[in-house]
């Protein structure tokens, strides 16, 4: 209940001031000269429509020249999702889009916001076309590889003679000493697991980079209980190379203790 009233309040605050400077919220630029509407699918149900310029068009909605701000992460989440949906709709329609960051708003000056937008498209015309050429026929995929901490710890412990010896010794030690030896064992295991993770990361990165067009290493995230994320990649992949990547990931997913998450195709958010 409280969250709804919050949303309404923020929404009302954005639309109530009639004298406010006008602006346009830009979702993405597409390689299409079409003028038209994508429907009321924009942030807060705004109509998303195109502003064409020389074979390109920007997908926008009209708004005050003020960023969308909220202290409630859920409200912001809904806005970001709407942003993504518009970019995705444009991408499905025209195939080649350059998504812009959430909250990209062009303000009116002595000229209207739309005129300023067209001027920007004109200034950036060559650079935008260059980027469209690079991205043609390619999509972004998120590739996340995790491993099962317990399975990997078991494998590492079995493979290391030093760890096995320490494990045997612990059994015959008095309480205090056994505690200290367990700490040593933990440290040793951690070191071995880190070394293995580094080796695996390099091998995986090499394998994946051979079947994608571009690759960005993102920060690893918290995974579900018991799993540790080894790598989090954004990959730019052409339609022809996608089956190679999928096959490599399927092979890895069948290895004991490994989990692979593949999300996409997505518009090329990380590569514009």
């Amino acid at each position, binding site marked *: 209940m409280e969250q709804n009233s919050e949303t309404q309040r923020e929404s009302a605050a954005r639309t109530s001031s009639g004298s406010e400077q006008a602006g346009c919220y830009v979702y993405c630029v597409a390689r299409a000269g079409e003028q038209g509407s994508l429907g009321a699918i924009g942030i807060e149900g705004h109509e998303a429509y195109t502003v064409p310029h020389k074979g390109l068009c920007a997908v926008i909605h009209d708004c005050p020249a003020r960023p969308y*701000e909220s202290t409630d992460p859920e409200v912001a989440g809904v806005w970001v999702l709407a942003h993504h949906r518009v970019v995705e709709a444009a991408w499905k329609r025209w195939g080649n889009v350059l998504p812009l960051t959430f*909250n990209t708003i062009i303000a009116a000056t002595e000229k209207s916001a739309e005129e300023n937008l067209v001027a920007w498209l004109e200034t950036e015309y060559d650079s935008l076309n260059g980027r469209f050429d690079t991205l043609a026929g390619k999509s972004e995929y998120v590739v996340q590889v995790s491993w099962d901490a317990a399975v990997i710890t078991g494998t590492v412990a079995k493979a290391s003679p030093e760890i096995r010896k320490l494990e045997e010794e612990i059994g015959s030690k008095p309480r205090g*000493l056994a*505690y*200290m030896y367990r*700490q*040593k064992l933990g440290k040793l295991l951690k070191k071995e697991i880190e070394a293995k993770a580094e080796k695996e990361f390099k091998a995986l990165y090499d394998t994946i980079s051979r079947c994608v067009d571009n690759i960005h290493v993102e920060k690893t995230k918290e995974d579900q209980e018991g799993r540790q994320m080894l790598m989090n990649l954004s990959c730019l992949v052409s339609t022809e190379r996608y089956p190679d990547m999928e096959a490599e990931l399927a092979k890895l997913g069948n290895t004991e203790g490994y989990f692979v998450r593949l999300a996409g195709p997505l518009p090329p958010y990380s590569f514009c």
Partner: protein
Amino acid sequence: MTKLDINVNDLKSGVLGLVVALVEIIKEVLRLEAMRRMEGGSLTEEELERLGEALMELDAAIEKLKVEQGIVDSVKAVRDGLDSVVDDFLDTMLNPGRWTQQAHQEHSLGAE
């Protein structure tokens, strides 16, 4: 005048969580120092046994306190928060590419 609304239980759990998280960090430092001495060979077996016992008792006392006071989650939240601050810092230092991202973010925040 703004009324300060304080839930006494939340405050207790927050402050106690912070204190116990700090005690845990100090315990970690002690443990690492003990390990360093053990690996350096400067302690006799007897000294190691006593040190191990002491650390073990400290572990048990902290765990008991956390359960009794119902602050297991708040201690974890403080530790996770500190971990993520350190992770972010290291991530930025080790990946110069992020400096540009951060500069852009700060710039756009400043522009707003």
